[in-house]
């Protein structure tokens, strides 16, 4: 964990509007207050409490009789301390598909088996498909494209027992689950249920567990009981590189 970026020399920063240190930001929100001077005043009060000083309501518009929408510009007094920033940084090298294939072939001497799916009631396969489908995502081919990976995509709405059963039958080295729906923290509960089921069924011999989805925080791996969490914008190449890295780590020197 470390700070990064082009401002590496500076420890303290503020938002940049058009001058260093001006702290300028723009926010928009809706208040359940009828449009009028009182609503504008309420918006200013909220902006003040958010640390915006001075704040300007540059746009306020009624939405129906009971709501008002605002756009507010202003300077925030808060200061960001980059030394206190905690993120998961990629701790493994990014490999090309041919490097991934070569490593698996050399060190595993068989295909690496990846089982994936959306668990629970989640029917949104966009995420898992972006990683697994040959079509891929963001110009990168999906894991199906990797010659030395064998991909079993179970699709949408896979139950946890079914996932465990299939993973065992396929002798999965890694299991990828995707969760998009976050209502009432469904993505967290589902993933915890999944990791608990694998621990119970297989103990130490469980496959590598990976959770992915746009609303996951990569810092949550421990809480979710998985080996890695991938958030928004993850590409297939990152996942493939991680698989090679993690399996290498898991089995000691070789993959």
């Amino acid at each position, binding site marked *: 964990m470390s700070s990064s970026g082009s401002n590496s020399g500076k420890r303290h920063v503020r938002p940049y509007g058009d001058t260093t240190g001006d702290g300028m930001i723009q926010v928009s929100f809706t208040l359940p207050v009828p449009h009028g001077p009182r609503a504008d005043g309420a918006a200013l009060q909220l902006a003040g409490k958010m640390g915006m000083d001075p704040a300007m309501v540059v746009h306020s*518009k009624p*939405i129906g009789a009971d709501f008002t929408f605002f756009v507010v510009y202003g300077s925030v007094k808060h200061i960001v301390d980059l030394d206190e920033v905690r993120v998961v940084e990629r701790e493994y090298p990014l490999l090309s598909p041919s490097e991934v294939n070569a490593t698996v072939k050399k060190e595993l001497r068989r295909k690496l088996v990846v089982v994936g799916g959306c668990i629970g*009631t989640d029917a949104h396969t966009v995420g898992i498909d972006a990683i697994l489908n040959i079509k891929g995502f963001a110009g990168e081919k999906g894991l199906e494209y990797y010659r030395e990976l064998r991909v079993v995509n179970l699709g949408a709405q896979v139950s946890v027992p079914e996932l465990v059963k299939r993973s065992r039958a396929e002798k999965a080295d890694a299991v990828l689950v995707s969760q998009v729906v976050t209502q009432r923290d469904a993505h967290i509960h589902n993933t915890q249920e999944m990791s608990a089921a694998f621990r119970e069924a297989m103990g130490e011999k469980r496959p590598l567990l990976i959770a992915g989805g746009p609303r996951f925080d990569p810092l949550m791996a421990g809480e979710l009981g998985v080996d890695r969490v991938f958030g928004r914008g993850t590409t297939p190449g990152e996942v493939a590189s991680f698989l090679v890295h993690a399996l290498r780590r898991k089995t000691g020197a070789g993959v």
Partner: protein
Amino acid sequence: MGDLLNLDPNVVAKARQLAARASEPVIALAKAHTTVAVERATLRLAGITGADTAHRAGDVPWVNRVVDTIREHCGLEHGAVLPAFDALRRHDFANLTELAEATAAGQVQYKVPAGREAERAYKLARTAVGKGVRTVDRNRAQRDKLIARLGDPAQRPWIYLIVATGDIDEDVIQAGNAARAGADIIAVIRSTGQSLLDYVPEGATHHGFAGTYATQENFRIMRAALDEVSKEVGRYIRLTNYASGLCMPEIAVLGGLQRLDMMLNDSMYGILFRDINPIRTFVDQRFSRQVHARAGIIINTGEDNYLTTADAVDAAHTVTVSQLLNEHFAHEAGLPDSLLGLGHAFEINPDIPDSFRLELAHALLARELFPDAPLKWMPPTKHMTGDVFRGHLLDGFFNLAGVLTGQSILLVGMMTEAVVTPFLADRDLALANVRYVLGAAGNLREDFRPAPDGFIVKRAHQVLGEAVDLLERIVDDGLLNAIADGTFGLMKRPPTGGKGADGVIEKTAGYRNPAVDLLEEAR
């Protein structure tokens, strides 16, 4: 719509012939089979309602108890109607709900009646189903009356907006606000996962995931609320829900009984995106579309989905192929062009050169191929990145493409797509976006004449050509094999696989279904 693309009528005719030929074997399969869902839908038309609240598995609809028990006792090869009404008559029950209660208590032994017994059971059933069909007819007449009184939206495209709170009471509030803000059509998104339930939940519901359960009571509540709002805003607000999934026929019936106006009903969506068994889907789809035809419900097909998984340029012709197949299946089931909300979408990667011209070419191709269909134009989702400002601009271009190519139903794009469920303000901004484009460029179509040998025209011809080529391959391979090979949306779905396969039953010669008879006689 004029003739801007100068499509070769021979090529268009060939495309339709190929689509018909590709569909034929599948239609034959659909006619030769029934499903548990078709049988349940028939009994729902015959008046069965309610659920067994005492069952250990939670609320199981009575219709599921009855159909499952009939299947156990005597199979469904003859349909559920003969055994059900034979038992009703023998036990002298007043209605199907009494029969269901007795079934749950283990007091009914079902059998397939023969001879005069069979005729008596059929007559009784036909009377009961006829009542349901008449309710559907009355709803259709009522819709016509309300439209005559209140009027249709003043403009095309009609503005289609989604609500999805999970709680029907909250949906009612949001739908009312959306209609007041300019929406002409309200779609209530279903709870994720409902498409794979092999029963329709009961009653008013308040705890859906990313959507609200489709139930008969929820349909009734929302339609009643929209009738009130329609009076207030002075135009008939249409209601949309989803038929697709394992309960397609039943939900179609409930839609007809509660005067829904549009239903999502794609011939292949369930197969491709929900991994529902292909045969189950084609059987269910045919029956549900026969019901929609009777109810005057506009179907919405799901071609937009292909483009979210496959590339919108490379796979453009698969959309055209699917539209042609959906059209043929729909015509065969009795739906006229005016009820064919064929879908397509603005999903081309905005970073590629001429992406907007490509969109115009594809949208215009759909418009000219299906001049009388109320085409449904779907907004960008795949290339919405979370950059809401860029997304808002993209939605503006989507709206512009919609008005420029004469689309009929415009699903309003949200800049928060792929971020959060839209805030109140997001929906307001999205509608302001639509209003601006409609006001500023709504009549631009009059001046829009793509150059006869220009990029747009050439691209449209190319896509149509590729569609014809693909249809030829599908005719050669068989549609079921094409689906198994991943032709659509890159999903590979073999005909023996998928969910709900065990609910497919081959009909015997003695199969009787008064619903099918009544729906087909009317044509």
